[in-house]
């Protein structure tokens, strides 16, 4: 056992002296997470901050108070949706004249300007069978992160609701017409009713936190998820980097020399596995601690975090050994390993986060150890307990056992 630790300690010390390797293992995931956090519009703890939106509502009401319902316009309905209390954490809306709205975007004071045309209500309330067309203009600065996309998505949702209401009104009007009222009056009445109620209650984005083990889960900051993905991704690279010392030692003659000593080959390879495992374990611990200190990430319960790190280190180091057992040179290890880890990272959601269960992407994610680990980290970040991460820990461990067995088989043939 002491020989295993002697080999592991030698490799660990060698890795700690290798500045480029350390940069790749530790600095890269932290830096990428910070960059992605900023890209998503965050600062501080990198949660998504409210997007500033300037609204120029040029729309004029088409009904008067004498028509039986409160005077209103479809444009005000859209403005109401944008200003709804449910969206106050996402959008910070200010109404401005059209020129001022555009200047806000040009000057970087707003991520987007929503310009509602003057004929908006007349188109929405049109009773013509051939509906005239108009468009809400979304004036956005593409360099201002994803704020414009969020605004566009919400406006799209509002329009969808308005068009849906219009279709429903047409159907209701058909019934009313059959009861003796004119078609146009029936349509307008129905739409007026919707518009009169709309905005604050009819159309809204409601955020509901997901349930975890029957409990309400915590809100999850984006940086935690991003860093978890990056950590898992770069742990594979870290493991590969250490496992690659087998090839380097083979090339430099130290591995054959080790084989001439009384230390059994299984102990030598065990030492190599131990050094790989301990290195990625240390890598994960450092990243988790750094995430806590620098980004204030609440990773979740300590036992859950420990289990996830242990499982991730096991699967990363065993896959690193498997790749090394297949290739012949350090250069091959770099090229093939990078390809394997990149594909696993892409399929496993290291760059996109975990997919919603039941989707095709979620199924693909669950075919990779990365995907399961990220499901585990997602649950840990949302306050899940050990019972919530049984499968996200067990399945990567099964992957680890299979990878390790294959690597041992390959090494036994290679160094027999």
């Amino acid at each position, binding site marked *: 056992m002491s*020989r295993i630790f002697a080999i592991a300690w030698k490799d660990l010390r060698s890795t700690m002296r290798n500045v480029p390797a350390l940069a790749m293992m530790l600095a890269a995931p932290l830096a990428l997470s910070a960059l992605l956090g900023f890209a998503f519009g965050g600062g501080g703890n990198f949660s998504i901050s409210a997007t500033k939106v300037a609204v120029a509502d040029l729309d004029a009401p088409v009904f008067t108070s004498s028509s039986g319902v409160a005077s209103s316009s479809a444009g005000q309905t859209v403005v109401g949706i944008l200003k709804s209390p449910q969206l106050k954490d996402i959008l910070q809306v200010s109404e401005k004249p059209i020129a001022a709205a555009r200047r806000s975007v040009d000057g970087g004071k707003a991520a987007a300007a929503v310009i509602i045309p003057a004929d908006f209500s007349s188109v929405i309330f049109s009773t013509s069978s051939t509906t005239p067309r108009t468009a809400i203009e979304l004036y956005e600065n593409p360099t201002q992160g994803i704020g414009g996309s969020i605004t566009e998505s919400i406006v799209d949702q509002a329009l969808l609701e308005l068009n849906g209401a219009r279709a429903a009104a047409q159907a209701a009007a058909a019934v009313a017409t059959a009861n003796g009222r004119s078609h146009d009056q029936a349509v307008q009445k129905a739409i007026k009713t919707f518009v009169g109620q709309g905005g604050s209650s009819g159309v809204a984005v409601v955020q509901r936190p997901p349930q975890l083990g029957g409990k309400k889960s915590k809100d999850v900051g984006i940086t935690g998820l991003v860093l978890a993905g990056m950590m898992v991704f770069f742990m594979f690279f870290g493991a590969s980097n250490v496992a690659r010392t087998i090839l380097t030692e083979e090339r430099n003659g130290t591995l054959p*020399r080790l084989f001439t*000593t*009384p230390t059994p080959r299984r102990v030598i390879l065990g030492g190599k596995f131990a050094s790989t495992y301990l290195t990625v374990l240390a890598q994960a611990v450092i990243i988790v601690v750094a995430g806590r200190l620098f980004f204030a990430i609440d990773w979740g319960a300590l036992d859950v975090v420990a289990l996830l790190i242990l499982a991730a280190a096991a699967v990363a180091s065993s896959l690193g050994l498997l790749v090394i057992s297949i290739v012949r040179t350090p250069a091959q290890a770099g090229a093939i390993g990078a390809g394997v880890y990149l594909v696993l990272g892409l399929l496993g959601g290291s760059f996109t986060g975990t997919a919603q269960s039941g989707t095709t992407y979620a199924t693909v994610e669950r075919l990779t150890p990365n995907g399961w680990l990220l499901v585990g980290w997602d649950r840990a970040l949302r306050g899940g307990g050990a019972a919530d991460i049984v499968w996200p820990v067990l399945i990567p461990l099964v992957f680890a056992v299979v990878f390790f067995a294959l690597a041992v088989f390959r090494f036994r043939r290679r160094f027999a």
Partner: protein
Amino acid sequence: MSIVEVQELRKQYDPPKGVLAVDGVSFDIAQGEIFSLLGPNGAGKSTTISMLSCLLHPSGGDALVDGHSVVTDSQAVKEAIGVVPQDIALYPDMSARENLVFWGKMYGLAGGELQTRVDEVLELITLVDRQKDRLEKFSGGMKRRVNIGVALLHKPRVLYLDEPTVGIDPQSRRSILDGILALRDQGMTILYTTHYMAEAQELSDRIGIVDHGAMIAVGTNDELVKIVGEEAHVDLRVDHYLDGMVERWAQVLGVTKAMIDEDHAVLLVQDANEVLPRLFEAAAAAGSRITEVNVTEPNLEMVFLHLTGRALRE
């Protein structure tokens, strides 16, 4: 009494059609003896050492090292041997001491015994003052000394040295050769491979000459030299017409062998004093002029030439 007994050792890569690197080699080494395997590059010396180190599994035959079979009892063999590989096999980012401590652990040493042996070996390789320096800062000769020191940590009964003086300066070479002789004087058995004739002649109690994977002669230096009898080795250069001259010289009385080695002729002659004038006469008769003559008394180079028809360095 033999401490190493090699019996029909054979190694073929990718049988049945692969390269036959070692073809039924047999020899033995007595306790406390320096035995050299002498042969050109690619002769099978390193492959033989690899099999005796249990690094390669023999395709046939066996060898007993300290009474243990390299085929069936490799663990015991590894405990009895120390191996100095041809290339420096150490960790350059570790200090000399860190290297020795690590390798000592791999040889099963621990605690106070390990530290004591590391100190002794550092004294032996005269690197006590530089023990804390990383190997990457060492000269080639110093690295070679650490490379040898590693193999001495566990006091092996047999030391294998695979061309340990390749690519180093004359001073370091001298130091290493003196060190090897000192180890022999302390009773260590040494298997040494080289393609330098002078090293084999100086160091060895006995020499095995290897070529194309086969042992072509074994014996002491004197015994091997007797193979070529009293023949002297004559190197000749001419101003032109070398090919034709070699054919003519081969017919001269007293010349037993004549061949071309790159840009000069190599002749084995029975009595150089008698034969040389005839060689000059033959050259003059052919219209050539001899520009350089070198006469060498019988040695291992000539033995190799005699046995294989090729110079040792080829």
